[in-house]
């Protein structure tokens, strides 16, 4: 008989689910309560969000192949985890992503094209994090989980003196995204310790897509990540990450709990990275095609499509329209990506410090004069 740890590693442990692999609704009273308001229109909206995210991903991958992006980080397969959790947030909630959360960004109205700035090498940020309460991507794994916790501690600070009821009604919360690989980093541990110590209103959303780069999940953890939460003294949920409804419901539940002052929640969304880690990666070197094939039937989009069709909530016309919209969006993204002006290094001097700094002044002045010398040569101007 397998021990519970073995079962967990084998992925056999019961997942919270509302929509199974065959596109059939499943029972889960506790979770279902959190998606009661989700009508046909909302479901179609979720499908559309997932389809657009996937189409964007395809377009960005193509742009990278054509040499227009330095790198691309695909999110194929993780659309349900991202759209479901993202849609569960409210405008006042602040989100700290890693670098693969294109679908979450979309739910926060971050323009897809803007997200290419980083990968096109024209920015290390790309969008204004304060506009949509969606933080910049973070390349140093797990670093942002601490920022998220600190931000949530700040929310608590804002709310000192509020009674629990008011806090439940009005409080903002935070979602921190990270991967199964990042879960091994010390910062994730520290962020959970701090979040628990200070009852920070934060949801830790781990997309366990089974692989770091070439290192599989069982090297990162002997137990389901969700079970680690108990060690910190808060709740952990293991959710079918390819089930958009379950991800929506679980995140809504967790956010409600967090913002009402009842402590953080860790969600482990069990999903699968269907493509390479990045466009620089070659998954054939470390994983079997049989594994990839075994996940294909669990595709989050197919699953919702089946459900929508079988329950009569969407027809061919709808799916054709979504496909057409997605193509149009992709063309727009492509066109916009070509309009990004090249940055100038001289501008970078302005953003190092908030207040005047003599070294910056000196070096930028030197650089200005240095460049001016070339300008003279180019125009042939004699001095």
């Amino acid at each position, binding site marked *: 008989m397998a021990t519970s740890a073995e079962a967990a590693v084998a992925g056999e442990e019961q997942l919270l689910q509302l929509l199974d692999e065959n596109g059939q609704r499943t029972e889960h009273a506790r979770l279902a309560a959190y998606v009661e308001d989700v009508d046909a229109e909302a479901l179609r909206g979720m499908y559309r969000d997932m389809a657009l995210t996937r189409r964007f991903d395809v377009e960005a991958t193509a742009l990278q192949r054509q040499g227009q992006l330095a790198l691309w980080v695909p999110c194929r397969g993780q659309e349900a985890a991202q759209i479901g959790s993202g849609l569960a947030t409210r405008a006042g909630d602040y989100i700290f992503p890693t670098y693969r959360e294109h679908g979450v960004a979309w739910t926060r109205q971050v323009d897809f094209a803007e997200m290419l700035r980083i990968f096109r090498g024209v920015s*290390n940020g790309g969008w204004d994090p304060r506009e949509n309460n969606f933080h910049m991507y973070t390349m140093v794994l797990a670093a942002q989980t601490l920022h998220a916790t*600190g931000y949530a501690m700040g929310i608590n600070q804002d709310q000192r003196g509020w009674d629990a009821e008011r806090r439940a009604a009005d409080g903002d919360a935070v979602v921190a995204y990270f991967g199964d690989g990042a879960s091994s980093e010390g910062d994730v541990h520290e962020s959970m310790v701090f979040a628990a110590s200070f009852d920070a209103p934060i949801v830790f959303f781990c997309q366990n897509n089974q692989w770091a780069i070439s290192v599989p999940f069982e090297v990162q953890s002997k137990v389901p990540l969700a079970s680690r939460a108990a060690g910190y003294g808060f709740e952990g949920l293991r959710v079918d990450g390819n089930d958009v409804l379950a991800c929506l419901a679980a995140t809504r539940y967790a956010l409600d709990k967090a913002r009402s002052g009842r402590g953080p929640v860790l969600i482990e969304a069990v999903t699968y990275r269907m493509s390479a880690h990045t466009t620089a990666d070659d998954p054939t070197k470390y994983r079997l095609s049989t594994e990839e094939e075994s996940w294909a039937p669990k595709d989050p989009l197919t699953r919702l499509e089946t459900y929508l069709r079988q329950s009569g909530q969407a027809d061919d016309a709808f799916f054709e329209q979504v496909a057409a919209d997605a193509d149009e969006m992709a063309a727009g993204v492509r066109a916009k990506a070509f309009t990004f002006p090249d940055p100038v290094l001289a501008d970078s001097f302005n953003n*190092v410090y908030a207040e005047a700094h003599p070294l910056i002044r000196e070096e930028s002045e030197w650089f200005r004069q240095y460049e001016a010398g070339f300008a003279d040569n180019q125009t042939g101007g004699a001095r």
Partner: protein
Amino acid sequence: MTTMTIAKAINAGLRRSLEENPKSLLIGEDIGRLGGVYRITDGLQADFGADRVIDSPLAESGIIGTCIGMALRGYRPVAEIQFDGFVFPGYNQITTQLAKMRARSEGRLTVPVVIRIPYGGGIGSVEHHSESPEALFAHTAGLRIITPSNAQDAYWMTQQAIECDDPVIVFEPKRRYWLKGEVDTERPAGDPFQAQVVREGHQATIVAFGPMVPVALAAADAAEEDGYSIEVVDLRSISPIDFDTVVASVEKTGRLIVTHEAPTFGGIGGEIASRVSERAFLSLEAPVLRVGGFHMPYPVAKVEEDYLPDIDKLLEALDRLFTY
């Protein structure tokens, strides 16, 4: 004017910031009920509450990383790192995150986090309790680094660091915590990023900062008995460095020694020597000399006297300086 120790001056400076700025808060290991291992935050939790003076879990990356998040939410967190040698678990957060947040966001986000670090040796302690890692941080753009050497500066520079919109590391000279000085609570100490001539002279300049300033002053006094007139510059800010004040002094005296406790190799002294040779080459009567620590881990307490730059090492360097 009141007389107080540097430790008390920092405490008073923190207190005033907590009073005047409702967004300021302190966080660190043992800083609340205990008042910090050096008692710098003594009594502050009792007066401002556990929400403003926060005893954190024991985790340096956690302290710095959550400070970044609190700053993003509009707060001005002041982190205390217990000892210099223990800042390194937080080094990643300081250098890859805190220092770069503003640049990465193209100027949209500021993270006004202050990190207080007691630093330097001379207290007879065990390993990792006596280090001077200032150059490691100074190399990272986006950080500001200051170090007070007297009570007046300690009082004001602490508050100025909290008011600054950039991340500031305050290296506090721990062996001088009990050094007394006058504090004028009405008159600010001036720009914390500017150096100060703390002793006038015309034959050589000693540039020192933090714990080495009293040593430099004592060496200058001793040299005066031998007939030398030595100027002493207290750098105060390690990043940025106020080269104008240093260069002006060297143009007057023609000779320069830079001293710090950190290893000479790769240290701040090398940067100053290089800059001065670029900007004041023709004023120099002798090469710039550096008097610092050796390239070894900070040694055991029984021999730290031999390791640390002291009056005799500075006088020896002055002798060499005057042979040119």
